[in-house]
């Protein structure tokens, strides 16, 4: 399977019959199918399954949410909201559209970014300092004030493999919840450049997480 975020359209037509999440982390496959089984049981209103699912995934989700929201109390609210949604919507989970991790963590990230944006809108955080600091530090910067202390964590992740220019845009979007145009404004770069860097950065991450994939940038 040679699909990725960066290949020209022509190459993308080569087979996508393999379940999407299978090639990503071959070593974790059994755990993933356990995750799927837990979601199915949750859809059948099995509270023990929810308990197990929570024990297995809540620390991952909470690490992510806290990193994005940067505020312990708000992060707790988001985590509860996310897991309540998971319980409510387990019946709609479709394995063809993503792994249990993607189902949960992308939801968690999305809710956390919503929370972060609403915090910014109500002016409860130091918007201006963040903007300035991020703009002044071209690489390896955090998207929100609470995140700075954990930059070493970021550098231990796959993000550290990226060139600074790519890491910066992906971090701003991934953890800072910034849009294309916000990133472009903040970094004072053309919109097209931002799009290209995002795409290239994700592409490289993808081939890192799925070493069997063919493409690198």
């Amino acid at each position, binding site marked *: 399977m040679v699909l990725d975020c960066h290949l020209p359209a022509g190459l993308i037509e080569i087979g996508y019959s393999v379940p999407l999440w299978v090639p990503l982390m071959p070593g974790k496959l059994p755990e993933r199918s356990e995750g799927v089984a837990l979601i199915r049981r949750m859809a059948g209103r099995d509270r023990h399954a929810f308990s197990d699912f929570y024990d297995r995934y809540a620390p991952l989700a909470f690490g992510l949410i806290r990193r994005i929201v940067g505020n312990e109390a708000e992060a707790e609210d988001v985590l*509860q909201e996310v897991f309540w949604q998971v319980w409510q919507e387990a019946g709609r989970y479709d394995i063809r559209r993503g792994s249990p991790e993607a189902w949960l963590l992308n939801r968690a990230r999305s809710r956390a970014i919503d929370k972060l944006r609403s915090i910014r809108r109500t002016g409860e955080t130091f918007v201006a300092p963040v903007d300035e600091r991020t703009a002044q530090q071209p690489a390896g910067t955090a998207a929100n004030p609470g995140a700075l202390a954990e930059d070493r964590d970021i550098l231990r992740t*796959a993000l550290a493999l990226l060139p600074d220019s790519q890491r910066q845009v992906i971090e701003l979007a991934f953890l800072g919840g910034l849009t294309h145009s916000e990133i472009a404004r903040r970094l004072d770069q053309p919109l097209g450049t931002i799009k290209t860097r995002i795409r290239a950065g994700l592409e490289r991450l993808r081939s890192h997480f799925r070493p069997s994939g063919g493409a690198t940038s």
Partner: protein
Amino acid sequence: MSHEPYLELAASYALGALEGDERSRFEAHLREGCRECEVVVSECGETLAALAADLPPVTPPARLKAALMTRIGAETRPSRALDWRSPWWAPWRLTLAGALAVAAVAVLYLSWQVTTLDRELARRSGELADLRAKVAEQQQLLAVLRAPDTRVAALGGLKPSPAAHGRMWWNREAGGLFVAAGLPAAPGGKTYQLWAIAGGKPVSAGIFAVDAGGGATLPVKPLPSIGNVEVFAVTLEPAGGLPQPSGEMYLAGKVL
């Protein structure tokens, strides 16, 4: 339209970095069923999830899980009894199935009972009607026998059956009772007919059959069209009887 402009956006869409028109256009493109872009978005979603999972996990405070479990328990408990998503072996389903089975058996049993009782009731009302008729007959006979002006006629056997004899209790107002013995069985298509004769004119008092022993009993209603009966006689007539006697006479006797 080429996919390239959309593919350019897929990674950003997965990141949630698209906004406004660009986002709407991309979502419309996905809704149109573009499998390629869907796959790319999904792949990017997996990459981002892996990136998220790469962050150091943080164990959330235990009270969060406790609160969620309470909330879930409150949601599921009230509806548990009749939750249609529960498996077939759920206790409430088994209980309901059992109750339905019992009810079905009860309905079958009761409808069988109703049918049986219906038949029994019809049989009994038939019996009751018979008994009523018999009681009315007996009452009429009693009235005949009790009345002081009831008279008796002794009928003797004539030529076709000399051994036969009969007796008639007759009351003008109440009617009468005729009994006979020793009569031969009526041949096929024939019947015995009792006649009341007054002033030489016979009037039919009814037809009757004889039992295996040659005996017969015939209650007779009052005959308003006739005056003082002088003679009672029995003839053999075609089945159903005739208005006037035509056949041979078997019994006859004067009213005393």
